């Protein structure tokens, strides 16, 4: 059996991340798989931090592994034997790693950075976790690069415009499908700058590691004809992706990014998608040095309807059927509405990965 780490990421708050996490926990605990659980945010409390509406909580059997901030243990009913106190500090105290010795509900807040999640992931694997779940937070993505794959939770809380949701999910799916085995010419990769290079691997131009300002790309003019590839180790903004798509790079040009998250963080999925399509049409390639595949999508028709009169939130719903079918048509991976269908389908997708 393989050991894998899954990230459950959302496109916004209240998209059903924790519901998804909980469904997976229930299913796999029932199968006797040793699970690891952590979170890059804070979940498990009974009322939402921002909207004040009720939220689900996470139940763990004995034997499961957890990595949580210390203060979570005090308010959880599950009993955890601490095996290691890390040096990772969060607003809720130090992250401790341990094993559940008394079953119960757990409030989970954990490492909030890429490097820290990497450390926890390795600990989980070392302790024998078959499946480690990383519960997401809001729309945060960055640390998920330390997982083997993403389950995306989206829904009306992100937008009640179902077409837009589908387009976004589709774009995200496309970006996450980028191959993660991008090779670069020897001697090139440096973390502190972006480079344009030629067929011989010689550097033609240097740019900042992260590309925010499209004006900065104007300096590339003279080197474009001889370019073979561009490597950007940092994040790239939507406007820069647009500009890169417009510049007259030669056919066959390779654009390398560190991982799909760097592109997703452009903040403009439409621009990112459009960039990919443009490059493809021009005969070029977009690759990543590290993959982050999208494994499945869960949808949630719920959204908190903000009432201006009373300055609070009230539950509301979009058409679940339409939402589900729209997302299914847009992405190339399985899509589920857990509330309607149960966790079986999603669990099946994951089981295939583990075995």
């Amino acid at each position: 059996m393989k050991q894998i780490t899954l990230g459950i990421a959302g496109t916004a708050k209240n998209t059903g991340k924790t519901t998804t996490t909980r469904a997976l926990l229930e299913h796999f605990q029932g199968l006797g798989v040793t699970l690891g659980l952590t979170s890059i945010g804070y979940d498990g409390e009974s009322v939402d931090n921002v909207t004040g509406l009720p939220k689900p909580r996470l139940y763990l059997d004995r034997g499961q592994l957890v990595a949580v901030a210390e203060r979570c243990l005090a308010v959880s009913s599950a009993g955890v034997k601490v095996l290691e106190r890390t040096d990772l500090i969060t607003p809720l105290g130090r992250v401790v790693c341990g094993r559940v010795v008394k079953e119960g509900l757990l409030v989970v807040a954990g490492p909030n950075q890429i490097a820290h999640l990497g450390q926890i992931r390795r600990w989980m694997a070392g302790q024998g976790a078959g499946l480690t779940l990383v519960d997401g937070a809001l729309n945060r993505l960055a640390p998920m690069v330390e997982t083997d794959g993403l389950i995306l939770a989206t829904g009306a809380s992100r937008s009640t415009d179902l077409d837009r949701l589908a387009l976004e999910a589709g774009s995200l799916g496309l970006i996450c499908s980028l191959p993660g085995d991008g090779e670069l010419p020897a001697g090139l990769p440096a973390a502190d700058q972006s480079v344009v290079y030629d067929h011989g691997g010689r550097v033609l131009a240097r740019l900042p590691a992260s590309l925010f300002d499209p004006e900065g790309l104007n300096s590339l003019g003279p080197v474009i004809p001889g370019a073979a590839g561009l490597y950007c180790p940092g994040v790239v903004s939507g406007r820069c992706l647009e500009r890169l798509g417009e510049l007259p790079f030669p056919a066959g040009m390779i654009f390398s990014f560190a991982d799909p998250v760097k592109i997703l963080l452009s903040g403009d999925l439409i621009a990112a998608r459009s960039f990919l399509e443009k490059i493809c049409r021009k005969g070029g390639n977009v690759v990543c040095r590290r993959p982050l595949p999208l494994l499945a999508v869960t949808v949630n028709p719920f959204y908190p309807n903000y009432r201006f009169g009373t300055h609070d939130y009230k539950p509301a719903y979009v058409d679940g059927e339409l939402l589900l079918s729209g997302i299914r048509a847009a992405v190339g991976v399985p899509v589920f509405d857990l509330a309607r269908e149960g966790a079986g389908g999603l669990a099946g997708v994951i089981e295939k990965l583990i075995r």
Partner: protein
Amino acid sequence: MTPKKVLLAPIDPVHDVGLKLISRGIREAGHETVLLQPDLEPEEIIQEILSHRVDVVLLSRTLGYGVAEILARFVDLADAVGVRGRVRLGIGGMAIRPELAAELGFDAGFGPGTTVEEALAFVEGREYLPGRGKESKEKQDLTRGYSYAYRNSRIAGLLSVITDGILDWAANKTSPGVLRAQVREDLWDVDRWRNYEKMSEFLAEYPGLCGEVPQNFYLKGVMHPKTRRFTREEVEALEQYVRDTVERMSLPGLRHTLQKPVVFNQYGTGCPFLDTGHIKVSEAWGADGVIHFDPSWGARTEGFMDGFLTHQEDGTVITPANLNRIKMSLEPGTLWQVRAHRGLNTPETVVLAGKFKADLTKINICYGALGAGTDPARLTVDGVAAIRYAAKYGIPFDVVTNEELCGVPAYKAFAGMLITADLSLRLGAKPALQPLFCYSPEVMLEGYMRDNYVDFNVAKVLALRRIIDAPVWPGAPIGFMTQTEDRVQSSAATSYHASLAAMLGVDAITIASSDEAYSGGPITVPSKVDTLRAVAEGFRFFGHTSIEPSAQARAWSGEIESGIEGVLRRVADRGDFVQALYEGILGNLEDGAYPGRNGRDTVLEK
């Protein structure tokens, strides 16, 4: 400590004053700060981080619709561009709590009321422990720095004569109260008691010295009709409640820039558990000390019972178990006073106060004898013993002039107070003087407060200070009889009296709740918060503002001083302090003072 480079960014459309204050504080601590303009995009802030090579970023933002996602994206960007490892991210704002900061992915969250010190700890990399803003409070010794030297030598001389007389008179006398105190002192050990050991020798001697109600308790297990015991579950629940509360307590100070006065309020709902609730609230709202208010039937009863006794009327019964429970719930820095100033149990109360390590007690022979119903001879014998125990245990006490409330003029009550005080000094104890700040019958009849409440109260303090260098602690509580049931009026009355006391530089004050004038039921805890807030506000308003006594105040203080001297001369001439009490020299029937009858004919020859 290497200086850090700190980037402060209001992501708010409006410049944040809080962030500016913190920025200045961080600069003054030697770090470099860069304050960005408001309303920048996350990407722009990231670029500033990259170009300035900062160590710490402090964002401030008010939460609103969609804001959480913007902040989350900022954190993501910081992580993805690779600076997250070397840059600490803090978020501050009105709705920020540690849980929210954790959800957003920040290293720390700063809510409203965050101090510069907290932000600085974060900047300097000292571990941030959310939710524990406990400043440690240290107990103040009210008597420190006072020489007790007399400034009026005639009064000093008279007091000396009177004290000699009292000690001679009391030398061969004892009482059931004194005997019980001795038994309690010698045969009852608090540690053994806490260990649930049976105090057999104590139980052999003690009940025989008690009155009927306590005797029935020890010999037959009969409870006082208005009391009940607590169940084991209730006790456990209370202990858990105290543990939980103590963990999240923070202890604000009331005094703003002042060093004095120490502020006391009273507890005594009748139930030690509810009292514990009241005490924790009082501590949390700034009370420096709390005073045990016991029911008046206790003063008429020979002896104490034991167990957690809750009692449905005003005042909480003194039993070792009740005292122990309350002691264990106090914050380490809270002063605790257990009063022994009236009734048939005065010396034993001081012994219990000593064994349970109370910080203060209260003793006044004259008030107890003239205004609280205890026989003068009995209370004199008991008072001397009580003072000796207070000296032995090193517990200071105040001497309060509550007989003013009966109608005894201040100068007579002060004469009695000084007698008790001088006796105390002779016996090696440490008294504090407690004049009343009140609208007394004397004041009403003489019109002393027709225009203002200030002059006469000032006069009292001036008079005492002209006589002796001793701590002054107005009570009890201050503003007595000036308060009505109107919550605002009542709180204001207390606050103004407290501010006056502060301007006079007194050492401590006892304050009422805003329920002071309400007699329809027990005092509720919100009313204690009311006056603590009001007093704090008065201290904030006036700060170190001082008061110059008016001509009228000075005139009255001179009259009080000579009045005191006159009374003391009469007492000294009478040659018998106890008879002086009976005969009304220190307060007579016309004044409204009555020699008490409880304990009459109970004084014994040794």
